[in-house]
């Protein structure tokens, strides 16, 4: 791993990540000399667009291992593109959200860029060092983002909870990595051991515990609802999409690369986590009256569904598993962003519209926003003609090819339960105006053109992915895990 191994081709492959890092430094210096909200937003958007443009030359270099820590291939670049897109939407949402609330909104974009840098490194990592580095860059950027509204006690509480639990999870992860290293003698994912000793298995389980915390699988899910509720709505959107997507991307890569993940024990452990998450997440969501908490518990269930793709990977091969994961995560990201985008657009300056009651009669007061939220909730429930349906269909195929019948049963039961609480919100929106307390256009935040464009794009893409999924599917089939 000498430094000379980095040539121009490697640098081209790293271009998206380098662009992100450069943008973060430029925004940092810009804030130091000229504190201006609009300029920070434009610089960030420019940097993110430049990163998206840099993906093309990076893809041209083909799948390439850079320094043994990262592998830049179609899989990594797809996720980097997805995260950049999500970040652009979060920037547009945050601009309106922060204008009224934060005294110094500029650092928000800086932290967003560094968290994105961490997520991109995670999506490309093939080595425990880059895995941990990416995860910490992502998490440490998220702590101040969650507490960005420092005058809100709940945000501080949420950030502290996330900080402490993330620290504990990182401890588990590091200990697991150390045990695996002790047995295999290599920090690369592909390291092999002569036998599946107890130490090796303990290491694999500890790594799973650490990852389980970040993805909020069932026994490690207790932080999710509080953190989702306490964080500002755009940050919750980022947390629910980019942070979880990046960890899932690295989990599948680890599962494909590491012989270790193919121990029979890890299938049992993963299966238990997935089944319990589906069931507990959906059951807990039934009792929620707060839309943020409802989405938090439903995200636990969705993470459980997604784990099916990782479990099935051993039997159906990495290509189909990566395709499933890619499509489902893309659909889930767009859908979740739309839900939290609506929440941001609905929130008055002094609080967030997070109670389901806030949305009563929305169809009569703001039909366009109500339609978008309906579309997003239907997509989360997996109703046909939405992106979520195709994602669930993919998971269904993957799980049935792999003959994971008990988990498939839980998947169906969980989706049925999900339909109930998603539809409850939609019915509430269709209720007549008199009985609800909808804030209405006057009380709600002044929505700018940027937010409107972002929301329109999200609604359109959810519908397009549901109606014409072939475009993304063809792309994924050609690019996934080369």
């Amino acid at each position, binding site marked *: 791993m*000498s*430094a*000379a191994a*980095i040539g121009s081709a490697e640098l081209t492959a790293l271009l998206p990540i380098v662009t992100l*890092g450069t943008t973060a*430094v430029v925004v*940092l*210096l810009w*804030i*130091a*000399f000229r504190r201006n909200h609009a300029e920070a937003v434009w610089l960030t958007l420019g940097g993110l667009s430049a990163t998206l443009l840099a993906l093309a030359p990076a893809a041209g270099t083909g799948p390439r291992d850079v320094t043994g820590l990262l592998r830049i291939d179609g899989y990594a670049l797809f996720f980097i593109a997805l995260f950049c897109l999500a970040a652009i939407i979060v920037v547009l949402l945050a601009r309106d959200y922060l204008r009224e609330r934060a005294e110094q909104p500029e650092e928000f974009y800086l932290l967003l860029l560094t968290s994105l840098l961490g997520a991109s490194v995670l999506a490309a990592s093939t080595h425990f060092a880059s895995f941990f580095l990416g995860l910490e860059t992502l998490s440490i950027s998220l702590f101040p983002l969650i507490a960005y509204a420092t005058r809100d006690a709940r945000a501080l509480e949420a950030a502290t909870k996330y900080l402490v639990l993330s620290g504990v999870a990182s401890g588990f992860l590091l200990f697991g990595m150390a045990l695996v290293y002790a047995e295999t003698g290599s920090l690369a994912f592909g390291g092999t051991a002569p036998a599946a*000793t107890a130490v090796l298995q303990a290491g694999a389980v500890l790594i799973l515990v650490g990852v389980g915390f970040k993805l909020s699988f069932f026994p490690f899910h207790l932080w999710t609802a509080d953190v989702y509720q306490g964080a500002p709505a755009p940050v919750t959107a980022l947390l629910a999409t980019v942070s979880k997507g990046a960890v899932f991307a690295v989990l599948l890569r680890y599962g494909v690369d590491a012989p270790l993940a193919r121990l029979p024990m890890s299938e049992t452990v993963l299966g238990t986590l997935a089944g319990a998450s589906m069931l507990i997440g959906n059951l807990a969501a039934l009792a929620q009256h707060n839309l943020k908490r409802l989405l938090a518990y439903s995200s636990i269930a969705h993470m459980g569904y997604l784990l099916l793709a990782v479990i099935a990977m051993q039997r159906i091969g990495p290509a189909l598993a990566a395709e499933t994961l890619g499509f489902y995560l893309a659909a889930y990201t767009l859908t979740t962003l739309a839900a939290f985008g609506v929440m941001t657009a609905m929130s008055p300056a002094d609080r967030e519209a997070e109670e389901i009651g806030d949305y009563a009669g929305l169809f009569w007061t703001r039909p366009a926003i109500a339609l978008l939220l309906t579309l997003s909730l239907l997509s989360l429930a997996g109703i046909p003609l939405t992106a979520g349906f195709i994602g669930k269909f993919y998971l269904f195929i993957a799980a049935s090819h792999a003959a994971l019948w008990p988990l498939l049963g839980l998947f169906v039961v969980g989706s049925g339960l999900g339909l109930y609480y998603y539809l409850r919100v939609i019915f509430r929106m269709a209720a007549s105006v008199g009985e609800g307390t909808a804030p209405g256009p006057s009380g709600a935040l002044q929505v700018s053109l940027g937010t409107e464009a972002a929301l329109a794009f999200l609604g359109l893409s959810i519908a397009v992915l549901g109606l014409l999924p072939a475009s993304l599917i063809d792309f994924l089939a050609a690019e996934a895990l080369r």
Partner: protein
Amino acid sequence: MNVDRVQVESLVPLAIYFLLVLGVVGVMLAIPRFVAQRRRSQARDEPFESGILSVGDTHLHLGVHFWPIAIFFVIFDLEAIFIFAWAVAVREVGWPGYLEMLVFVSVLLAALVYLWKLGALDWRTRRQQLQDSLLSERG
């Protein structure tokens, strides 16, 4: 597997030592319970501060100036660590290594510029800053 067993056997003295430590500490804590006299008086119940009477409340408000100092320490300390590691291998890594170090140091430098501009290097307390600005307005 064989290696594991040998390691476990070599751990036995350590385990005995650990148990002995626990025993000694337990005995030392138990002795005063049975031997010592117990009397109570006002002077006896006060904390012993080497003869100085303890005065006042311990819940003081301390300024958090140590916080930026800690951050600066981490920045420069980490920088030093990585530069040390680079210095060991400076001939082997050559110019590419030099460039990488340059990038690393300049990113940290950018962070320092940011903190400087933010006023993190201004060690005065808020009250001192206010006094200074009032003084400069007058004179």
